[in-house]
């Protein structure tokens, strides 16, 4: 189906150009009274939905410490090779725990694959999107920065159970 007509054929009024300018200005003026589409960012914060993939964090239970058993599946699947896990053993009910769990936030691409393959629901994507550091060492997040109490992550965990 080849289209013959071209919408470009202008009539004499349109060719005169001046009425067109006036029309254009009216359109611009009309836009001044429309609702604003931008956001005043630092004052006004963007509230992400539960599906949002922000900074990956480790889930911390109230009494039992982290859920992670250091199986290393997240570090295996990570396409950007950002995660480093080192396992150790304890006498607790869960016999393994990550002695060292580091995510290099300069490498992380926020794809969420770590969360998707985790067999323990131990690593989830939070809503945190403001990541700033002043040097490269600070960008490597250890367990101290990664552990987040489970209450703060509840809606992401609910989302995972319902939609994944």
């Amino acid at each position, binding site marked *: 189906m080849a289209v013959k007509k071209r919408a470009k054929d202008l009539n004499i009024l349109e060719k005169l150009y001046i009425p067109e300018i006036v029309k254009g200005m009216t359109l611009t003026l009309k836009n001044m009274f429309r609702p604003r589409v931008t956001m005043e960012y630092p004052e006004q914060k963007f509230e992400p939905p539960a599906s949002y993939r922000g900074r990956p964090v480790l889930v911390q239970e109230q009494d039992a410490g982290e859920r992670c058993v250091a199986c290393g599946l997240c570090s295996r699947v990570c396409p950007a090779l950002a995660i480093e896990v080192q396992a150790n053993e304890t006498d607790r009910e869960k016999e393994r725990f990550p002695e060292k769990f580091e995510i290099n936030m300069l490498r992380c691409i926020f794809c969420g*694959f770590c969360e998707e393959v985790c067999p323990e629901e131990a690593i989830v994507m939070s809503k945190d999107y403001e990541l700033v550091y002043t040097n490269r060492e600070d960008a490597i997040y250890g367990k101290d920065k990664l552990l987040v109490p489970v209450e703060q992550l509840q809606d992401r965990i609910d989302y995972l159970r319902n939609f994944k």
Partner: protein
Amino acid sequence: MEKYHSANLSDQRIIDALIAQDPDITIEDALENEMIINMGPQHPATHGVLRLVARLDGETVMSVVPELGYLHRGYEKMAENMTYLEYIPHTDRLDYTSTMANNVAYVMAVEKLAGIEVPKRAQYIRMIVAELSRIAGHLVAVGTFALDVGAVTAFMWTFREREKIQNIFDRIAGARFTTSYTRIGGVASDLDSEAIKMIKEFLDQYKDAHEEFEKLLNTNRIFIDRLEGIGILPKEDAINLGITGPNLRGSGVEYDIRRAKPYLFYNEIDFNIPVYNEGDSLARYFVRVDELKESSKIVYQCLDKLPQGPTMANDAKKVLPKKEEIYTKMEELIHDFMLVNFGINPPVGDVYSAVENPKGELGFYIVSNGTGYPWKFKIRSPSFCNLQALPLICKNQMISDVVAIIGSIDPVMGEADK
């Protein structure tokens, strides 16, 4: 393309190529009238890092040679060292104006290779997101094209509409830009009712917004005078050069993979394929604008037909199991570990699968030797092939029209350089 070992040799090749396009030239004539200039790689109008070396006579372009490769990241080679699942985020970074369409194209190739049957709901969701990202991609194309020829307002308005699509993707996939939404055997997460409502609201208001910016450009005399008859790509040349997508349809060839070789459920959907015969920059612009309307028509129909059901195929050896089953069942836990560690191991063989992306035919050619990693991976990227038309259609145009021509070809260098 040959591999260059030094910058000087590379420049010499370009100059040779420039001269080779016009064998009648004498050196005296060249010294008197002509000069060779660089456009790009850091030029705002070349849409990324595209470098053009142009031979000029006054303001007329005698010949032009595009140099690609400034954004080369070796995606074809990288694929050989990662499992099929791990490669999904990399497809986001091919044509970064329409990430979802790339995701869909890639997993469809892998599924064809591994022989995975995808549930109907997942296929409809894929159609919805692919068409939405076609709208987003064309909005960027039309907006930046208008910006190239001096219409700044249209650019702002198209980006405002695109922003709404990004918010929908944020809701569906969890990221505005690098979506990584599809999975081998389905899609990563189901559409919730809120997301469907957002898509409907977007489409309802999009009709008016579309008419508004169309009105701004279609009867704009400056816009039309700058584009009409500029960069004519004849039908035969377009076919011979392997041009696909809106650029081909702007030259009067009615070829769209969605119609020629339907995939997903495009054969059940009613839509038109806009074709224009003129082959100039304005025709290519009109094709994109008409396709925007057609795409929103397709999304409406997909939403009506969206069936209920699972979004991931049930194939334990090839498709990641559901999260809840991993937590509670031993079998699924083992499969999870096996799939992640060793990959999906598709049978020995090769496959080529192509889909109609906003820019044209995006094809993946995968050779498998039976392991979890592809043995050879080739991307047939539409932008790369479409750019081959530049030397032909820039010839004997004014230098300022080259900007308009690049805008009308609409290359995305992430894809062209792979």
